[in-house]
């Protein structure tokens, strides 16, 4: 766990230092006339310092070496993240109807490993239900694409 925390602390440190540098580039101004970078600088500096304290607190070996993910527990969240990203990309290209159907289909097959009958029923009914709720009843403007 500490190993991952050290990595996280390192990332915070880089974000803090980078943000402080960019804040100065933006224009610090003065206390009387604060520039766009004034407050960001005074937020980035304590972020860098706190990240350094966190890094120091995470030094040394782990009392009980424990991985961040037990066995392959990362698989389902990872897979669902990829499906979500593909869904958002497809939404702009194929439109709401087809992309929503594919979202349900991919999710139920790859993430949940449901039976085919459930996959088919939920994908069709879920897509139709969402369309009726959002497009027809709530009149939400949904993305249109190649297939609507």
């Amino acid at each position: 766990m500490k190993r991952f925390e050290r990595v996280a602390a390192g990332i915070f440190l880089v974000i803090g230092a980078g943000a402080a540098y960019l804040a100065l580039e933006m224009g610090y101004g003065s206390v009387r006339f604060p520039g766009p970078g004034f407050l960001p600088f005074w937020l980035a500096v304590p972020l860098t310092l706190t990240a350094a304290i966190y890094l120091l607190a995470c030094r040394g070996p782990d009392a009980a070496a424990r991985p961040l993910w037990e066995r392959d527990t990362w698989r389902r969240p990872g897979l669902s993240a990829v499906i979500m990203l593909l869904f958002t990309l497809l939404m702009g290209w194929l439109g709401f109807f087809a992309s929503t159907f594919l979202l349900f289909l991919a999710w139920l097959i790859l993430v949940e490993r449901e039976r085919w009958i459930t996959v088919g029923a939920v994908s069709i009914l879920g897509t139709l239900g969402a369309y009726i709720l959002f497009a027809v009843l709530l009149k939400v403007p949904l993305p249109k694409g190649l297939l609507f």
Partner: protein
Amino acid sequence: MDAFHGLLSGFALALTPINLLFCLIGSVLGTAVGVLPGLGPAATISLLLPLSYALGNAVTSIIMLAGIYYGAMYGGSTTSILLNIPGEAASVVTCIDGYQMAKQGRAGAALGMSAIGSFVAGTAGVVGLTFVAPPLSAFAVKFGPAEYFSLTVLGLLLATYLSGKSVVKGILMALLGLLLAMVGRDPVTGNERYSFGLFILEDGFDFLTLGMGIFGIGEIFTSLEAQMKAELVTTRITGLWPTLADWAVAKWAIVRGSLVGFFVGLLPGGGAVIASLLSYAVEKRVSKHPERFGEGALEGVAGPESANNSAASASFIPMLTLGIPGNPAIAMIFAALLIQGVTPGPFLLKDHPDLFWAVIASMYIGNVMLLVLNLPLVGLWVQMLKVPYSILAPSIVLICAIGVYSMKNNIDDVVMMVLFGVVGYVLRKLQFELGPILLAFVLGRILERSLRQALLISRGDLSIFLTKPISAALLGIAAAMILCTVFMSLYRYVRRPPPANA
């Protein structure tokens, strides 16, 4: 207008058919998201922000969103008691004794006392809100930019301290949230900040995208990993109305829970989760038989369930009177008010008395609705627990995506939401509390505005924050908190046991 007359006019507005309908919708949705694990009130309110905008009426939409928040406190206990999984974060501690009671065949008593305790405490919290908010609002009118800056600093600090075990992690989250709020155009000069030439970052991050990402999508990733394998207690639920013996055991727990919840709910970062945990600790401490806790003690259900409802009502006070949201769900309601063109804060009562009192009146009505929804209709919610998560998860993703897309009709926002979801999930894995990010993000803009205004007024003299008495007092409290933490850490470091193999 005094509180009594204000409340009467509020009831006149809250009792109109449309407001009653949306109060009921909010209460039903709130109970539903409370019952369903993996979808909290903050995420649900963020999902419904576009709908609240479409409603076009600030009073009606805030009545509905408020109903979702306090309704979730009622629903969370059902899942905790029957499934041993908290339906809502504030019901975590109810699992301990509630599930044991259910296994012993006393699910009805646990559910009944939980609903009644929630009703009593929720109503007591609204009574407190009715009488505390107006004088606090009148006092807060005296606040200038310096006082607001100091209050925001103190609020952020409290949120950080109360959010989790590690203060360092809390501070990191709060600072990250503040920096995220800086992305986009500078409010004074219009210069771009941290946008890296990307069109999507020119106007900064959207509150909804961040909130739905880290709370909605992030929660789904966490739930998928956990592979919830819980055993639903399916015995017939009887004996919902408490017996005299149950009353004797639980009545003081409800009173104590209401008081603890109210005071914790007032604090930024406090909210319902801390209130319920604190109430459980109090009940165990005052009990003559603390060994019964963990074995199915009714006080262990009644106290925390009362506390989280009272805290939910009380947490409206700092938001409505000072414009400082204390927890993520309240921050979402804060955003909803802004979307409707209403600025929460000391002038809310003066400028929008109809909204102020109608929302408070609706909370009295909503609590009655929720008592009915959660006592005679509890069986309905138990049925809902049987909906498989495999169907629920993609549906939640879809609702989140449409919610974010419909704000600006921009696919890039949906991509950003998913990325925030991944970041939220990883941070949660590393045991970071995510509440401070969202609170700091909301407060970041208030902080910057008040700081720059105060420096302009004082012509760059920083002593303005110390020469104004209220500001100085608030900063004094903040400094005392920091010093206390530093001294406590040093004390623990000095008194630590020597290493075993030295």
